[in-house]
């Protein structure tokens, strides 16, 4: 971009992007295995005895699912941005520090232990996956710190080791579990969008939205961090505090996303790069725009997952990779002159 980022320009861009997101969500909610007429939806829910199926499908099934897809996409994309700058690694994604295997382990433990209780009606898998994800991040952080104060390589290696260990545990449990339990776990992990109820969506929106705003607050500090911790410190940035806040928030919103929808790859890795190629690396812009782009991307991917092989459904993770790959390549080719590390 040839000009500097100002508050006014950023607000304008965010506003436009949000409008696009709203339009995409609206269009996608009209698409599905059943045809739903908007007019019928507007006539209301119907009675207890004779519910209006168009209303039910649109409001109770499709809309919550699309909102969920938007939240998860935003969370994963922003977490990806943060991990890429914290670890100074363009190949970092939200799962790089073991979150995926931690969530998976939590999920399979929940399924095997046969817990039948539900936490306020939420399935135990989600709760255990959330706990597993956060617990793993804490473990990796702890191990990483043993190698010295935020040694990036140490952190990455700790992530690799923990990932390998937990994956092995998962495979062990899988081999002794009953086949339908195994299938249930794997299916859940592959990434699935279910229509959560509104309370869950509301709370998740609060967490993810709040997290993204907090990350925006430390945007300038993240910019400075791109030049390395020493340089950032000399410029007056409190590097330790910035890292802790960024890391903690990114891990938390990833754990929320994973517990809601299983493991959906590709979003956290590729959306940040795509947005960076188009809008540049300034994190004050990169974060909100990645969040919105991630939301749009996942909503579209989920919609495709619902209709491509109807009445069956593809796992969302499959669609994100197949759709996202070529799309990203197009962006890469078109904007690559801006990218330094490609030269």
């Amino acid at each position, binding site marked *: 971009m040839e000009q500097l980022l100002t508050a006014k320009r950023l607000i304008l861009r965010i506003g436009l992007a949000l409008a696009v997101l709203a339009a995409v969500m609206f269009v996608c909610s009209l698409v599905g*295995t059943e045809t739903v007429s908007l007019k019928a939806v507007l006539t209301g829910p119907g009675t207890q005895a004779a519910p209006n199926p168009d209303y039910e499908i649109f409001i109770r099934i499709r809309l919550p699912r699309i909102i969920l897809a938007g939240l998860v996409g935003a969370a994963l994309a922003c977490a990806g941005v943060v991990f890429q700058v914290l670890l100074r690694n363009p190949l970092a994604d939200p799962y790089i520090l073991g979150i995926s295997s931690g969530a998976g382990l939590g999920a399979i433990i929940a399924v095997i232990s046969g817990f039948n209780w539900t936490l306020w009606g939420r399935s135990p898998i989600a709760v255990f996956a959330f706990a597993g994800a956060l617990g793993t991040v804490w473990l990796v952080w702890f191990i990483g710190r043993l190698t010295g104060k935020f040694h990036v390589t140490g952190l990455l290696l700790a992530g690799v080791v923990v990932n390998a260990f937990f994956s092995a545990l998962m495979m062990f449990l899988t081999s002794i579990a009953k086949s339908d339990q195994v299938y249930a776990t794997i299916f859940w992990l592959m990434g699935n969008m279910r229509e959560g109820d*509104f309370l869950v969506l*509301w709370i998740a929106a609060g967490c993810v939205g*709040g997290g993204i705003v907090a990350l925006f607050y430390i945007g300038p500090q993240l910019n400075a961090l791109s030049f390395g911790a020493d340089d950032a410190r000399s410029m007056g940035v409190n590097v330790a505090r910035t890292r802790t806040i960024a890391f903690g928030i990114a891990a938390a919103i990833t754990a929320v996303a994973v517990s809601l929808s299983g493991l959906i790859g590709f979003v956290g890795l590729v959306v940040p790069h795509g947005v960076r190629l188009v809008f540049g690396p300034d994190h004050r812009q990169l974060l909100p725009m990645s969040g919105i782009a991630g939301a749009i991307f996942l909503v579209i991917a989920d919609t495709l997952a619902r209709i491509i092989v109807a009445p069956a459904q593809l796992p969302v993770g499959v669609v994100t990779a197949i759709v996202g790959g070529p799309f990203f390549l197009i962006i890469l080719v078109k904007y690559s002159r801006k990218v330094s590390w490609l030269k």
Partner: protein
Amino acid sequence: MNKWSFLLLVISGWMVVGVTMFGSRQGRDSSGAPLPDRADRIVSLAPNITEILFAIGLGDEIVGVTLDSDYPPAAAEKPKVGTFWQPDIEAVVAAKPEMVITLGFEQQKNLAERLRRIGYNSLTVNIEKVGDLFAVIEEIGAATGRQRQADELISRIRAKLQQLASLIGAEARVRVLWIVQREPLRVAGRDTFINEMIELAGGENAIGPTVHKYPPIGSEQVIACNADVIIEPAMGRDDIESRRESALQHWNKFKHLPAVANRRVYVIDGDTVSRLGPRLYEGTETIARCLRPYLFEN
């Protein structure tokens, strides 16, 4: 106030608003509410549930089935609501059901809960053993106001099984190896409904107790099991024929096994033995015919 406290305040407010708005059970949630005792529009998410519904006279009331509900033939004509593994919740809702009946494994149980949360009556049943089958027939009968037909169905099945038992009498059990898959070799273990059917038909599983229900086994175990009879269910006429033709050649490597030596390898139509449903007797009789063909020559 600095921007961080402001953010914290906004988030806390957001959460409070959310809990007050959505915290209490929303209008149409029917979890925990008792089921009605009749239903005029029923969706069935499993083929054996569909069979039960037809068998107790509810064929007309069915408004949605999964893709694999193919018996009785009328079931195949019904509107589809997705597959057994991935039922389509939108299609279920579009069918305006008064009751949805699902099986108890994770995906379907989850779907039943989601349906209840948006106000649809759903019934989750487990049909894993023969005992379950009779209990579930009663349950479905009670929930749909067809108790009499349900009881009659149960008595009919029991009577026929009893007849079969007397026909077999106290003869020694025939050792059966039940093949689920040829390559890699997988068999039905003892913790399955197939095992129960084998025993009702006067046989016993050649394989001992195993951890998995349908374990893969190696050649050693095949030789050690000393099976008198090998039964291979196949689906569809083409599959049945091709398996019959290749059976001798395929099993020849175990030529010292009594089943192979005495040429007692049976490829049967898997239709009545692939699911646990009202055709329990038909499936059991098919097995009995393999174990003691002489009993049925009349």
